[in-house]
């Protein structure tokens, strides 16, 4: 109950950036706003921060309506994708900025500011950089300084706008874990925006999935991953991509999956690439005959493109390299694939498990 958003909507010209958002973000939780670009996630974050004004609705912090409160009185820590460090100030002065600009009456003494800045810099492991300028730091270091700077003013909530978006993969991975660690230490109510579902799954306590300016689903990482509420969420949470085709409802055996596509009562069947098993000789009898049309090794897994003979549809499987080696397949070889797990959505877009 720390951040409550009621009926917030926002238009940019004729474009609906946010359509009537209602949301409650838990106190002390790390929430991810997840969605594709143009879903309104950044706009929502900026409205929470006060950097953008909603056309209607209200935002509450801990029960207090702050919709009309100016940014500089909201006490929010905001971390930008491109760091937004003050180029002409040293790292020390950047972190101290929020304290130094306070009116004399509420400004801590120089000693206290110094102590506090160094405490924060040691927390982000950049004590030795205090006298440097931002241009001398790497991207990951800059973002850690930005975080220290935001925390220096002891914000009520911490907001991060695609904080790792501009960093390379390895640094991103490190900073993600580090952010999670930091949150476990401070328990500051935090919201971060991302378009990367892996990042949201790894870091967040709660995930809010947005699409076209509306909330699709809110839940824990397990909930949204295992029980996606509709095809959009399913597709968005998928690790690689998903295979879907039009399927006949009554025939629930996996071997019929690629047939009967012209029957009435059609629905969409969702299969994750790693829920597909390959075999050369179809021992279970449930397999569907297909031809290998492509394969690509990605780390310890192999992405295999298949073409089902009967329906002439393309399916992607993602299997372990070990099993791929054991299969000893080449391009254009025949193979059988079995669907281990799938979901379908009926017309109301509610999901059901596909029983195999």
């Amino acid at each position, binding site marked *: 109950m720390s951040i409550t958003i009621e009926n917030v909507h926002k238009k940019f010209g004729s474009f609906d950036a946010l359509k009537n958002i209602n949301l409650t973000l838990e106190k002390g939780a790390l929430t991810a706003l997840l969605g594709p670009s143009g879903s309104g996630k950044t706009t929502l974050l900026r409205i929470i*921060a*006060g*950097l953008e004004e909603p056309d209607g609705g209200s935002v509450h912090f801990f029960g207090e309506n702050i919709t009309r409160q100016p*940014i*500089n*009185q*909201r*006490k*929010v*820590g*905001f971390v*930008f994708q*491109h760091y*937004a*460090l*003050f*180029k*002409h100030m040293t790292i020390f002065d950047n972190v101290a*900025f*929020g304290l130094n*600009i*306070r009116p004399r009456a509420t400004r801590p003494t120089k000693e206290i500011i110094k102590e506090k800045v160094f405490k924060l810099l040691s927390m982000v492991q950049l004590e030795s950089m205090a006298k440097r300028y931002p241009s001398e730091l790497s991207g990951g270091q800059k973002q850690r300084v*930005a975080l220290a*700077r*935001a925390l*220096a*003013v002891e914000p009520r909530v911490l907001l991060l706008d695609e904080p790792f978006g501009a960093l390379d993969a390895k640094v991103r991975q490190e900073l993600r874990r580090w952010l999670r660690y930091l949150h476990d230490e401070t328990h500051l109510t935090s919201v971060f925006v991302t378009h990367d579902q892996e990042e949201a799954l790894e870091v967040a306590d709660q995930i809010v999935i947005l699409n076209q300016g509306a909330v699709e689903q809110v839940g824990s990482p397990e909930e949204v991953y295992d029980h996606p509420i509709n095809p959009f969420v399913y597709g968005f949470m998928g690790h690689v991509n998903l295979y879907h085709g039009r399927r006949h409802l009554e025939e629930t055996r996996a071997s019929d999956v690629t047939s009967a596509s012209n029957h009435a009562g059609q629905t969409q069947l969702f299969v994750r690439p790693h829920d597909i098993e390959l075999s050369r000789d179809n021992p279970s009898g449930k397999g569907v005959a297909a031809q290998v049309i492509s394969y690509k090794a990605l780390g310890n897994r192999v992405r295999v493109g298949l073409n089902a003979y009967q329906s002439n549809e393309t399916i992607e499987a993602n299997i372990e390299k070990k099993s791929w080696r054991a299969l000893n397949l080449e391009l254009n070889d025949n193979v059988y694939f079995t669907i281990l797990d799938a979901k379908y959505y009926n017309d109301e877009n509610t999901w059901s498990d596909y029983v195999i």
Partner: protein
Amino acid sequence: MMQKTSFANESLWVKRAGILITLGFLAVFIVLPLYTIFSEAFRSGVAVYKKAVTSPEVLSSIRLTLTVALVCVPINTIFGTLLAWSIAKYSFRGKKALTTLIELPFAVSPVIAGLMFVLLFGAHGGLGRWLQSMDIKIVFALPGIILATTFVTFPFIARTLIPLMESLGNDDEEAALTLGASGLQTFFKITLSNIKWGLLYGIILTNARAIGEYGAVAVVSGLIRGETTTLPLTIGFLFDEYAFSAAFAAASLLTLLAFVTLILKSAMERRLKASD
């Protein structure tokens, strides 16, 4: 790649001819006139030069020119920055029109700019008659010269700052605001530091033009000798009277100012690039 190889393969004499023609052009159109100014200025000796430069007429015109620049440059600095700020940071109706309008002082001939102010504030217009009745003199006096010069030099600062501010974006300012800074603190501690080299560059250009402006000031000042004649106007007078040594001596002063401006300008340009 293609271009580079084709240039590299260009035969040597084409390259040399190109450079020679360019140098020749520069010599005829820039170096020679500059040389003439200084050689004419010193033709009758250093004593004459000194006397010409320290004559009451030249001294008073230097004073007037500097006064105009001293008023005009700060005004344009403040309003140019404000204008650039509002154009770069906000979107509003008529923004495009305003951006085009800024260029107007560059588009119209300075003479017309001067005439505009004469018609607006002179005895012909209603405003002018009212001002006259209040005993306020604008046209053919210092205020008119300042107005015309301000008008003519207005675009420099705004035009330098708008693209710079647009490329900088709002992130720094927004970060300062979320940290609790007020609007003024944000401007003076963040924005101003970010744009300082660009702003100085604009100020130098404004100053150069303010000191050198002839057309607009010639119309608006009424050419009252020793009273409303700025340095460029005085040079004109001296030249018309065949007082070549004096005219060129005064001109050499303006030329020296131009050199200082150029040096400062290129220094600012380097800083501006480095700060990007």
